[in-house]
């Protein structure tokens, strides 16, 4: 959208912008077809998705492409995955026992630790790739910088948190070594993507909670070095002039002071259905950038357009009166949300 960068910079600086910027990911066929002016039909879907995201949003968090639902594949570890239209799932891990995982981790630590900081050539290539993506979005900002904490990389990119829990109990030294290796790989990736991004935000995807509670205890999060690792990400991002939005589904209030102490600048997606109260968070943390907030579990899929408009207005007025609000769904705009409700939300947000 026009003027997205200026709006986002104002909002993040605590100045109430002309209108509250829109922050989301579009994974909804009807919404994409509406904003792109053409349906997703398998012919250049990437351009269709980018056109829709560029017209609908100021900040585009992720831009996945639709897949052939039901497609399955097996990865190099023997894990089986199945594609949904917008998400894919691991349906069976190839490595079963903690001992098999430990052997795999021991073999791969070196791979994560290897390498040096990105050279000028690879940074230039990354920058060119970013510019190409940004051009397609017609002024909207794409979050190129999405660093993961080592814990989340271990759990979500590799073994899952069930196996991680067993490994943490059975192979503590190895796992600590693995987390340090993942951290070092993440630092290199961040050094590649952060310096040249046009978007002034980094989003740390770190699901550590679910409905009304944390997945891991605060003590375990501290023990695995999660908060120190997050502080490391924040420090590196701040050095590149990026503000850090921390993303986790679920109920985070128990550790929100620790997250703030680690240096995060904002929070996303603020799931009302999981017990997060955006108004209470604003009162307690007036400096925090709040991104998301509009309930995607019940309100956006099930309420009337009038109710969606009223709630959107209420959040903008109560939470964004002094900026620091990037409004969006409390998850992502997926196919559960009827077009008429998304348009009600969007029109209300665009009113300023």
């Amino acid at each position, binding site marked *: 959208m026009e003027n997205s960068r200026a709006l986002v910079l104002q909002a993040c600086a605590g100045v109430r912008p002309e209108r509250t910027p829109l922050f989301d990911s579009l994974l909804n066929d009807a919404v994409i077809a509406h904003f792109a002016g053409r349906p997703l039909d398998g012919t250049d879907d990437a351009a269709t998705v980018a056109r829709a995201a560029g017209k609908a949003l100021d900040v585009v968090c992720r831009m996945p492409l639709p897949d052939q639902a039901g497609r399955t594949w097996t990865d190099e570890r023997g894990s089986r995955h199945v594609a949904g239209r917008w998400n894919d799932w691991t349906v069976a891990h190839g490595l079963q026992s903690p001992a098999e995982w430990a052997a795999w981790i021991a073999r791969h630590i070196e791979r994560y630790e290897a390498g040096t900081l990105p050279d000028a050539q690879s940074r230039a290539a990354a920058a060119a790739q970013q510019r190409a993506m940004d051009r397609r979005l017609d002024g909207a900002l794409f979050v190129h910088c999405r660093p993961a904490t080592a814990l989340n990389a271990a759990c979500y990119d590799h073994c899952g948190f069930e196996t991680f*829990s067993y490994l943490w109990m059975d192979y503590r030294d190895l796992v600590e070594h693995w987390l340090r290796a993942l951290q070092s790989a993440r630092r290199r990736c961040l050094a590649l993507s952060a310096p040249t991004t046009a978007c002034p935000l980094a989003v740390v995807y770190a699901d550590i909670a679910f409905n009304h509670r944390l997945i891991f*205890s605060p003590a375990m999060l501290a023990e695995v070095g999660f908060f120190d690792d997050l502080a490391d990400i924040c420090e590196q991002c701040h050095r590149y002039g990026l503000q850090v939005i921390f993303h986790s589904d679920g109920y985070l209030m128990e550790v929100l002071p620790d997250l703030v102490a680690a240096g995060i600048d904002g929070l996303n997606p603020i799931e009302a*259905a*999981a017990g997060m109260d955006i108004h209470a968070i604003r009162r307690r943390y007036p400096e925090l950038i709040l991104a998301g907030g509009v309930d995607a579990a*019940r309100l956006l899929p099930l309420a009337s357009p009038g109710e969606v408009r009223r709630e959107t207005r209420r959040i903008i007025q109560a939470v964004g009166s002094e900026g620091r609000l990037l409004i969006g769904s409390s998850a992502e705009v997926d*196919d*559960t949300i009827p077009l008429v409700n998304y348009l009600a939300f969007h029109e209300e947000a665009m009113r300023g």
Partner: protein
Amino acid sequence: MAVDLQALAECIIRGNKNDALALAQQAIEEGMAPQTIINDGLIAGMAVVGQRFKCNEYYIPEVLLAARAMKECMGLLRPLLTDADAKPKGTVVIATVKGDLHDIGKNLVSMMLQGNGFEVVDLGTDVDPDELIRAAKQHRADIIATSALLTTTMPAMKEVVAAADEAGIRPATRIIIGGAPVTQEYAQEIGADGFAPDAASAVDLAQSLLAAAA
């Protein structure tokens, strides 16, 4: 010296499978009745885990580790049970409903039920109502437990209730539901027999439903 089953329970509570296995083995060698070891050691430990989970003293990893320790011990004890001993508290067929691939909540409920002496037939995720009913009939289930994480897959729970009614397996088989968007009101609305907000509460609910049916 006779094995202290409270020590075994403590090993389960701490998720220490190696010590739990050693104590269970020692108790077997000392001639203790397998059912006593299970009830006073393993299930007693899991009951504490459930309570701690319910009041936010325990989180998912602690439950997983406790359930793993219990499962390993059961591997030693199960072959020693007589037919009479082996009778579970009840049989639960569990699944995430059609169209929904989320399994964390369902797996936790499954583990907690097993840890509390139920036999659990876990059908996995994205399960059709007819498959649930078939399994419930085949295993003479006391309870069908379904989970949904998505607002849009919740209506599949209503289909399960309708399919169970149509198959004539109620009220002998009770239906309980759970999942992030699910509420007590929704359970009443669709005619389910109960709703549990978390895994430990699901065990309490299953136990109370069976007690009421007895």
